């Protein structure tokens, strides 16, 4: 038997695996669309007719953040923790799939499903309400940020699932992170600048709050100072990296503890 690699078949299998999780449909597609329509209804009442298109777009940008959070952060952690509970990764290893091949297939699958969710959400949003058309560079910037966030979420979800190895514990942690981030980053209808000072300081550490509040400013025109956003990406990336490192080291110590 030869060592198996990450190929088309394994990637399709992992996509099926992601789609087998009902959380993905609920929190990754239905929930952002529902929240989008709910929040624009409230916002529209407070803005003049001429600003509706811009207000809708601002809500649209904010709600896109929910998709990688639901698919990768919540969905992957719940899926992978259940797999670890049942020792499925060990089974794959014994059938000749090295961990790196499986992980690569899982990352690709998460990105594919996240992208599909994003396409569906965008299509529904742009087909239903009046929205501003972005500059190509602005749209690409948002897409890049969403994929970067997905990568960071993947590392965090993988680390948390590996540390707890139980669906229940990993789910509680991730749900807390999910709803905590939604509240802090303006996804629950409260803007970042409306939050108490301590919460605003916490929000400043998260890239989602910059995307949520600032991206509308350069969506169609204008410039933007990316420095705080990059710093927040570095911060969340470092936190996720540390969690992943702790998980990997714990696993290593467990195997080598003689």
């Amino acid at each position: 038997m030869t060592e198996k690699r990450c190929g088309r078949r394994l990637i399709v299998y992992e996509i099926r695996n992601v789609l087998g999780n009902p959380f993905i449909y609920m929190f990754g597609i239905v929930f952002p669309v529902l929240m989008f329509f709910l929040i624009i209804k409230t916002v529209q009442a407070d803005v003049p007719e001429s600003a509706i298109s811009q207000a809708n777009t601002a809500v649209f940008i904010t709600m896109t953040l929910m998709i990688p959070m639901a698919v990768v952060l919540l969905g992957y952690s719940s899926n992978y923790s259940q797999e670890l509970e049942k020792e499925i990764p060990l089974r794959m290893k014994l059938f000749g799939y090295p961990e790196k091949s499986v992980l690569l297939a899982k990352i690709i699958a998460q990105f594919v499903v996240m992208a599909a969710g994003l396409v569906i959400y965008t299509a529904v949003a742009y087909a239903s309400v009046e929205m501003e058309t972005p500059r190509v560079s602005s749209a690409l910037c948002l897409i890049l940020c969403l994929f970067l966030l997905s990568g960071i979420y993947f590392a965090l979800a993988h680390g948390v699932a590996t540390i707890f190895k139980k669906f229940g514990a990993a789910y509680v942690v991730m749900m807390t992170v999910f709803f905590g981030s939604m509240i802090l980053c303006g996804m629950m209808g409260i803007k970042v600048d409306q939050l108490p000072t301590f919460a605003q300081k916490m929000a400043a550490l998260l890239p989602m709050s910059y995307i949520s509040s600032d991206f509308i400013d350069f969506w169609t025109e204008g410039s933007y100072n990316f420095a705080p956003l990059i710093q927040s990406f570095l911060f969340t990336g470092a936190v996720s990296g540390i969690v992943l490192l702790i998980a990997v080291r714990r696993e290593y110590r467990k195997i080598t503890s003689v």
Partner: protein
Amino acid sequence: MLVEIRNLQVFYGKFQALEIDRPIRINEGERIGIIGSNGAGKTTLVKTLLGLTTYKGRVETRLKPQDMAAHLQFNHYVSTMSVRHVLETILDTSIKTNQRLRELIEYFEFEECLKKRYKSLSGGQKQRLTIIMVMMQDAPLTFYDEVTSGLDFETRQRLMEKLLQWYEGKSNTLCIVSHYYEELELLADHLLILDQGRVIDYGRKQELFQKYCGESIITLDANAENERLTASYRKLAAPAHLIALACREQAEEEELAGLLIRNNINFKRSSSDIEIMSVNAKAAYAKEHESGVSVND
């Protein structure tokens, strides 16, 4: 020689799960039955040979991890996935184009299960799924860890028959962990007896039987009448509900059988009873450790 184990020690934290202090050699084509009660170290040994634990000592083999296949005690797959996709992905092949896989599916009467999701399979079907995938690996060294546990008698019998037929005449080395002695009587030619993480004995099944039981044994129900009738014969250690009598030669066996027949007493004769043999091997090991004389000397 396929695998040689020397001075092996496996710890889980501070708990010593396994200690093999005498060399164990596994040769090509051998069928090794690994027996012992719960906590004996059977699964730890399998995991160690598969490279899934860290150990002290030496496990020498020319095999790479991918040359080994394993049916573990618990074999789970993604529950929402269809069985067809589990099979095709794990084996990295297509059922349509893989003749050998189709034959195995047919051999195990598994066609109907392909459409189902993994979570909808019964216990026996789940076992068959892993067995098919393990057999498809056609590895030089294959482990079956309690492959029939949790299955009803009939399913267990059918599965063992299939395994037996499949490996007949093949050169794969098998390590079979089982609590069912009758399965090992059918499948194994060597036995490794473990108890509380230690090796009680290892060798050819027949040689071990002769070492601990003699040429043959006769077992009958343990009751006062049977105890009185067989008082003058050499008794072996046996489970509480049985009397096990050792026969050194055919004449002794015939004499004993005649006595039991004349007294209308039901009995069972065997020259390969693994249960009685392992009970006596453990008893001899315990005695050896009391007296300090090795049964393996």
